């Protein structure tokens, strides 16, 4: 009798571990575990006020970028251009910062949106898979960025550097998150995006303008990256050819760490953005503080990434990423 009870509770535990509820909780558990582990390994240094402020300062612009990419990945698509978009948009922001700050913000957003539109156009019109298109445009705009910064780093005006205040960056980030959350949760945009991710043909036959939805997702993601470029310029002050380097993989890893199934679709959660970005930043800082070389850091990040993809992927929806 007791044995049976034990078996019963054991199978309940197993069922729970395989359930969607657990998969939904996993990122939160992961965040707590990573913070605790890092805090122990760095002997409590990571949770000091000074460190936390530094940590936070690294969170803003990736979180803004991740919000846009979140919509693209919900579609079941992927975007590799954030790094190069951020680079090019940062250059535009720096140039325009000498004329007017609002102009710089708008210019950054428009530059990003234009790159997003280009990606979306090729993806939708020519029915190319998004990872093919965005890998191509990634090289293209990395090239543009390198070309513009060959001679010297591009400086931004002192007016824009003076804006490097936490409250401003927090406000921008929180606003982006709130607006995106509202659109995702309370308008048909969220439903449409998830429907395309879960079954594009059926979504089209249910009246979703699938091509338009996909195109707009890329434009918005580009625009948000452009806005993130403004936040980036505020912080760094001058732009070199490596601006935004590897940002795309950072965002991808963050979202997956946050529990976003790489296949997109109905099982995405908005919290994936926040949890994932925080997790990545803590992890990254912890590894640096523990004194690992950058090669070792990459190795460790790679392993953690692999484990998370394997744990969170929605096997029922398994197919090639669009």
């Amino acid at each position, binding site marked *: 009798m007791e044995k049976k009870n034990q078996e019963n509770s054991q199978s309940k535990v197993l069922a729970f571990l395989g359930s969607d509820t657990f998969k939904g909780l996993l990122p939160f558990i992961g965040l707590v575990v990573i913070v605790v582990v890092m805090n122990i390994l760095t002997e409590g240094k990571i949770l000091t006020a000074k460190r936390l402020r530094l940590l936070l300062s690294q969170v803003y612009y990736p979180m803004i970028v991740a919000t846009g990419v979140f919509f693209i990945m919900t579609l079941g698509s992927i975007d590799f251009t954030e790094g190069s978009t951020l680079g090019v948009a940062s250059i535009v922001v720096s140039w325009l910062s000498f004329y007017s700050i609002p102009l710089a913000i708008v210019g950054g957003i428009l530059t990003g949106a234009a790159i997003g539109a280009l990606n979306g156009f090729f993806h939708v019109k020519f029915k190319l898979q998004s990872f093919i298109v965005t890998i191509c445009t990634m090289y293209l705009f990395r090239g543009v960025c390198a070309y513009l910064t060959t001679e010297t780093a591009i400086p931004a005006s002192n007016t824009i550097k003076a804006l490097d205040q936490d409250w401003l960056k927090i406000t921008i980030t929180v606003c982006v998150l709130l607006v995106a959350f509202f659109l995702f949760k*309370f308008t048909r945009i969220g439903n449409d995006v998830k429907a395309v*991710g879960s079954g594009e*043909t*059926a979504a089209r036959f*249910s009246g979703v303008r699938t091509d338009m939805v996909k195109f707009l997702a890329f434009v918005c993601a580009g625009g948000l990256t452009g806005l993130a470029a403004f936040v980036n310029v505020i912080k760094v002050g001058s732009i070199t050819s490596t601006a935004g380097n590897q940002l795309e993989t950072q965002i991808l890893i963050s979202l997956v760490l946050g529990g976003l199934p790489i296949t997109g679709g109905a*099982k995405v959660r908005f919290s994936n953005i926040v949890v994932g970005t925080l997790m990545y930043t803590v992890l990254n800082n912890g590894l640096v503080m523990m004194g690992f070389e950058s090669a070792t850091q990459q190795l460790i990040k790679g392993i953690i990434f692999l484990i998370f993809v394997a744990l969170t992927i929605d096997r029922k*929806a398994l197919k090639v990423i669009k």
Partner: protein
Amino acid sequence: MEKNILLRAEHIDKKFGITHAVNNVSLTIAAGEIRGLIGENGSGKSTFSQMLCGIYTIGGGTFTLDGKELHIRNQVEANNAGVSIIVQEMGTLSGLTVAENIFLGHEDPFVHHGIKDSRKMNQEAQRLLNEYGFTSIQASKMIDQYNFEDRKLIEIVKATYMKPKILIVDETTTALSQNGRLELYKIMDQVRADGRSVIFISHDLGEVLEHTDSVTILRDGEYIDTVQTKDVTEDDLKRLMVGREIGSAYYRTDYGTPISDEVVLKVDSVTVPGQIYNISFELHRGEILGFGGLSECGMHEVGKAVFGASWDRTGSVTLKDGTAINSIPTAIKHSVAYASKDRDNESIIINESIRNNVVLPSLDDLATNYVLSKKKLDSFANEHATRMQTKMQNVHQFISDLSGGNKQKVVLARWLGKGSDILVLDSPTRGIDVKVKQAIYALMGELKAEGKSIIMISEEIPELLGMSDRILIMKDGSINGEFMRRQDLTEEDLIAKMV
């Protein structure tokens, strides 16, 4: 009395999560027997046979074939043990030649020192195809050049050339036209004549009665009974499947009801290159207009064209108020609904919840100033899914968990919720059991009574005869015949216009 028993299944069991798909099923099949296996959707017949042929692992119990217990881990091992299956959906692989498909998993005889001898493989495949009488199929060509039906025929060759002891035919006939079906029946008879056996799974009870020796009935995963075919009628089988008496009202019984003169939809010289040519017809208020023909006659494309879903359509589709339907969003906005034959890909969003499937076309109507309320969506989905008597835990359950019949109910719930006045239903009862079929026919009757119009595209002739006010028969992409509803209209009348 024990005839020569070929297959013995003992206490076969399978669970998927909380669903008990097959519950302790035992049966025996004699050598030289064609055994029908019937049951409603979700009764476990496919799961049972897929365990036998290695697609699913066996949850519990044993299969004994010819006195030897089977330990099968995949389909190739099943083939080697003498079990093969022809499945319901596409069972051939794109990107390979016909010959490569036929010998998939059994390439060894054609491989010498690690190099494949394609010429020999093609020759052997062609010899088999000719032997079966499918001479129009070329073994060396890519399989993608052949249509669904020819690919099914190729699959039949693939499943039967090695002379399996047990051949499982799982709902294959729904994909085949009359000719293809006859070929399949011939092969089944041949298997029986050789003293081997067939397990024949079908929803078409007429076909089951005509071509089997005995029939096993499953219900909710449990074994119900095995009967001799010659002792039973279609009604007996239905009763055993459902577990209660099916009412006599299956199809409509009214004849001679006048149809309104009001034209709600006018289709004028619609052409989709390679599919349909110069199609013109009018749909009246409260009319059920049937479309019939062979599976490749273009009738399925007509449904898409009316719904604005064809890419390169010419001609016009206009509503009573003059609105031209040229895109899916326009169609939906103006009260046209569409349920596709390809339910899992085109009708339902398979990896979504029931709720999100039901509300999708109605989101604009449900929003207040573009804002959606979760409560409103939930109650909307619940109302319409419940009206269709969908078997579900709640509306947040994922639709992929539902059986075919319940998925179709969700599709219909979606359009009922939208309040569409013109419904294009392509193969509305395809692969659906009698109980749900009955519910769908009853619903069509109700909708008709409310003055809604239905275009019903169907490959099942009895359904066309039983439900339509008017039937258009298509052949090679054009309309080839028109019949008004009549009691003395026969299947032969329609078939004569199809071929």
